């Protein structure tokens, strides 16, 4: 096992620990029943996605200022992993919505803005795929990523700004029993580690792809400064 595989294995093991906590430690919700256990991963992966998109934002800004490919590779990695976690949030949310609301989807502000988030970053990935690799692709995508981040606060605050069917903030309002809260924070920590590892592995893949396409880090205009994988 190389060190990437070791890290991946460790992250997977952590997720198993989180899973155990979710199903064995956390109490069953007396109103919603077992389906409420979706909550932990649903929210954690949303927050992980925010983190990934923050990497895209910071990476994009650094890239535009310094043309440092390292920043751009992190941005690319962040976008892909962020889309994956947004997908998890969406799917989990829809699975939860069916039994609770009676349908997979309603068009409320939280759900819609989350879908838009997914579309924006999928568009980011498409811009990358459809332009010739190199500085231009990186610059254009950076602009898309920076503008796209506008939607992240919209998603987060949608439940307070608009009347939504989706529940409002409960964690910051201390509305959860202690066991649930512990499980939630454990799951969130594990998910964030997983996201960081995924970004890091993906960064490695992007580096190898770049090398194959001779997108060198040879001439950085300013010395490289790496963005944090997850802020």
């Amino acid at each position, binding site marked *: 096992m190389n060190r990437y595989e070791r890290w991946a294995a460790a992250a997977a093991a952590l997720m198993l620990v989180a899973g155990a906590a979710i199903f064995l430690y956390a109490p069953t919700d007396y109103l919603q029943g077992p389906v409420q256990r979706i909550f932990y991963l649903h929210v954690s992966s949303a927050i992980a996605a925010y983190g990934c998109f923050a990497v895209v934002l910071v990476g994009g800004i650094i890239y535009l200022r310094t043309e440092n490919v390292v920043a751009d590779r992190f941005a690319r990695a962040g976008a892909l992993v962020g889309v994956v976690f947004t997908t998890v949030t969406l799917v989990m949310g829809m699975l939860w919505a069916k039994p609770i609301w009676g349908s997979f989807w309603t068009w409320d502000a939280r759900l819609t803005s989350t879908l838009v988030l997914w579309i924006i970053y999928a568009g980011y990935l498409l811009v990358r795929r459809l332009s*010739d*690799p190199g*500085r231009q692709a990186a610059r254009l995508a950076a602009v898309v990523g920076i503008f796209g981040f506008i939607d992240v606060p919209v998603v987060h605050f949608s439940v307070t700004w608009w009347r939504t069917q989706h529940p409002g903030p409960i964690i910051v309002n201390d509305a959860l029993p202690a066991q649930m809260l512990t499980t939630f924070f454990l799951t969130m920590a594990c998910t964030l580690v997983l996201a960081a590892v995924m970004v890091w592995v993906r960064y490695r893949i992007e580096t190898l792809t770049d090398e*194959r*396409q*001779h*997108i*060198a880090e*040879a*001439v950085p*205009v300013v010395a490289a400064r790496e963005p944090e994988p997850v802020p």
Partner: protein
Amino acid sequence: MSLLVGNGLTHWFGRELALEGVDLVIDTGEHMAVLGDNGAGKTTLLRILATVLRPTSGQLEIAGLNAFRERRRLRHHVGYVAHATGLYPALTAAENLEFFCDLQDVSRTRVEEALDAVGLTRVARRRAGELSRGMQQRLSIARAILHEPRLLILDEPDASLGDDAAELLTQVMKDKTVVLATHDHALANRLCPRTLVLRHGRSHGTATRLRVVR
């Protein structure tokens, strides 16, 4: 004094190496021809020198400025004739030039002079899209000299030009530093005292001498 100094210019298109470590020094007022087979990398080199394309690696200095970081400032001094003419087909020949006068911040009186220099005065009021291929090429040359650049990059400027190509280009190149790519050896010999030969993206001929000079 050297106007242009390129150093290890290398460009990869994906996995295709189009230009490999080309060094060149061009003195002020010098005329240099770039020769080479199809696909040798002439256009790639010229696009880099015109600061349209940034090379994968290598340095380029024009008039003492870093050509990649201070592109905007350089553009007053560089004129470029590309393969594609880049004209607005719905505007007349004169209107095309007037528009570029505004962008270049030069007086519109230059339009007439430039049209005259390339022999298009007669068709000044015809739309660019209706001109023949050779006329469009002339118009593209006229646009490149509108702001009287110190450095002129000409990529096959003789393409589709009529019999007067040599005289026209001599006139246009006067008092300017010129890099010219062409397939016409006779023309190259007539217009340019110095020649750079590209083969599979590497420089041969005078270029080898250049390495020593640097």
